[in-house]
């Protein structure tokens, strides 16, 4: 079996400043023949290099995607080569002086231990592992490589490439409702709450649509209730409270329309009970603040759990919520949480302990 050979890959060499990078395609199934994901080895009991174990759950998710109908991996993996890798131009330098067509020559020796392979996978470890594991005969991917002079340069590239800032959360939450296909677990869970929030926010600012235009998101900068407060309230209720009844546990889908109805009904009662506090931003009102939104979310769960939206009018929520009037201090005055715990109206923070303090305070008044 020929386990030592040269791999010749058509490539374009680009000039970047004083350096070259190489763009090429390679069968993802063969990447591990010449590239290592880590330079770890033991030398006299001293750990050398760096090991980065694969995140198998992530790999599995990519793999499932790759095995789906028409997978696409458009972004390139990044490889740092050592000096054993060569580039041979196949055509004279043309009009584009920075771009040269040729062949990248990678020496492959399958018997080499991992830490002596000529390439280091700087970016795309999970993707290439997924390709390796997938039930596919081959899967060519785009690759970008550079020839590094020494391990230190490989390392610095590794850190640079892996140090990109993730997208801002708010923006992701806004994109989620209109996203289809495979999503990472954390985002899959947020998709439904984000969709509900978007729909609540889309209606007009009037009685009956208490959240319309009031939720602040990257594209609704005039909103004043923090998107995160609303998302948390929805998620809580969806998983632990009154909104759970609209969810199908077998596939996680939900009756969004009924959820919207349920939320709008309850929060309209809140809006009508405290119209001024509802119209003020969190700085001037604890009602629209994270603490108020979440605590009243728990009040909603407590009053409406197991009751379908259509039957909410029969509960006389107006009467229940009006019981809160004497004990709240949304915009002025003090909160009386007990003999040793009196706080100014704005002395409440959006912390779990303050939220639970306020929640208990409200629930006691309802009993």
């Amino acid at each position, binding site marked *: 079996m020929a386990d030592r050979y040269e791999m010749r890959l058509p490539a374009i060499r680009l000039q970047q400043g004083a350096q070259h990078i190489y763009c090429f395609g390679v069968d993802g199934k063969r990447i591990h023949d010449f590239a290592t994901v880590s330079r*770890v*080895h*033991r030398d006299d009991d001293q*750990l050398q290099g760096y*090991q980065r*174990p*694969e*995140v*198998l*759950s992530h790999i*599995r998710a990519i793999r*499932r995607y790759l095995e789906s109908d028409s997978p696409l991996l458009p972004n390139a993996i990044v490889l740092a080569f050592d000096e054993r890798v060569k580039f041979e131009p196949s055509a004279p330098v043309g009009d584009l002086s920075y771009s040269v067509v040729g062949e990248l020559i990678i020496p492959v020796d399958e018997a080499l231990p991992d830490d002596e392979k000529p390439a280091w996978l700087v970016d795309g470890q999970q993707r290439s592992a997924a390709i390796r*594991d997938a039930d596919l005969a081959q899967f060519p991917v785009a690759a970008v490589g550079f020839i590094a002079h020494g391990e230190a340069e490989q390392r610095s590239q590794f850190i640079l490439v892996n140090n990109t800032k993730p997208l801002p959360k708010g923006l992701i939450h806004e994109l989620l409702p209109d996203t289809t296909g495979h*999503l990472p*677990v954390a985002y*899959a*869970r947020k998709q*439904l709450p984000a969709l509900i929030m978007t729909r609540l926010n889309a209606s007009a600012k009037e009685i009956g649509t208490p959240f319309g235009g009031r939720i602040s998101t990257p594209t609704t900068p005039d909103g004043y209730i923090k998107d995160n407060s609303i998302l948390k309230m929805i998620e*809580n209720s*969806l*998983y*632990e*409270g009154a909104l*759970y009844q609209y*969810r199908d*546990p*077998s*596939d*996680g889908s939900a009756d969004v329309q009924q959820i919207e109805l349920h939320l709008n009904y309850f929060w309209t009662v809140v809006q009508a009970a405290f119209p001024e506090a509802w119209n003020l931003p969190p700085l001037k009102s604890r009602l629209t603040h994270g603490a108020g939104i979440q605590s009243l979310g*728990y009040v909603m*769960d*407590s009053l409406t*759990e197991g009751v379908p939206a259509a039957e909410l009018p029969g509960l006389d929520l107006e009467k229940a919520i009006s019981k809160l009037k004497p004990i709240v201090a949304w915009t002025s005055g003090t909160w009386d949480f007990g003999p040793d715990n009196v706080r100014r109206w704005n002395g409440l923070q959006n912390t*779990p302990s303050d939220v*639970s303090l306020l929640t208990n305070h409200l629930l006691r008044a309802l009993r």
Partner: protein
Amino acid sequence: MKFYFPDSQDLVSPTYDFQHDEYSPLRVRQRDDLYAHEILDTPPYSGILVSKSIVDGAMKGAGKYTSAQRARLYRLGVERFFRLPKGVESLGDNGAFNYVDELVPPVTVEETLDFYIGCGFDAGVSVDHIIFGYDPLASLDDVDPAWAERRRITLRLAEEFITQVSEQNLNLQPVGAAQGWSPTSFADSVEQLQKMGYQRIALGGMVPLKTKDILDCLQEIDKVRLPTTELHLLGVTRVESMDLFSDFGVTSFDSTSAFRQAFMDDRNNFHTENDAFIALRVPQVDGNPALKRAILAGRVSQKDAIAQERVCLRVLREFDGSAGAIERAIAELDAYETICQVNRSHQAEYERTLTAAPWNECECSLCKTLGIEIAIFRGTERNKRRGFHNMSVLANKMKKLKSNVLTSTTRSNHG
């Protein structure tokens, strides 16, 4: 004889993907998940035991409940929260285990009753303080003063407990907790509890006792026990002795042991009515902490481990019971053990399991749907299902006891 299963938030996810070992990303813990009484055709117990310390937290760290779950338990009550079918009862206790190191119980009778009434339990055990020691020769007076004090505390709190239950006319069956260190002291506790008005009494601190010691205590208790007094054994399993126990007025007990053996025991992981087998260990490369550490340290090759893990699963899934299949499975499991650097080989025990293939014989709904998967020691979803299977075996064993009457629903489901 009634069996109660102590709750420790043990559920399984019905949408778990065994093929890919993945949860649905949308799964909601506890709400979407199923209890043993929901996933098995017949509830494998006549009741659940819920400890306050597990729900509310106690001295040894926080409880097992998130604050949202806790709030929902109080809001919905124990029956709706646990989605208990008709006939499955609820019993509350304090979980005295969690404050065994304290001088006095860090919980009042009032708080305990708030928990029982707030959650709507059928019955509740009075506040107790465990005595960890057994000395049949020590008399009531001449004994470690700390033990005597714990028994006094337990009796005083029991008195306060039943007084409040009757004064407030609470809808709760009061169960008096008896502590002791000898047959005499237990009998004395029971006698005093009966005088207070208890008709049901839970015997605590008996978990470490030998069966003979338990019988000695029961015999002594029997001399003072009123014919109407029912006894509960806290945390004691010993199914084989239950007929004997029942002769002395024991009508119920609770235990996690059949369940926990599925993943805590070295070898008796898969129970059958007359035997126990070792489950087939195929640890998850990315889920097993010991294996993860070994990979991180560079002692185990992640690549090799993943490859062999898959081979093992494939071979087990293709298992057809033939001699060749048994041999192949043992060889691959053995190879995986070598890669994972497991010191002790389980070859002989695996052969016994694979030859008997007990999951094929089992009538429980889990074995019928999962087949060999339930016998694979791997991750919480398989291990807990095997635990549930063990409980259904226990329920079957109990049905055959001469003393036994499981709940009426359980029987009616069987015609």
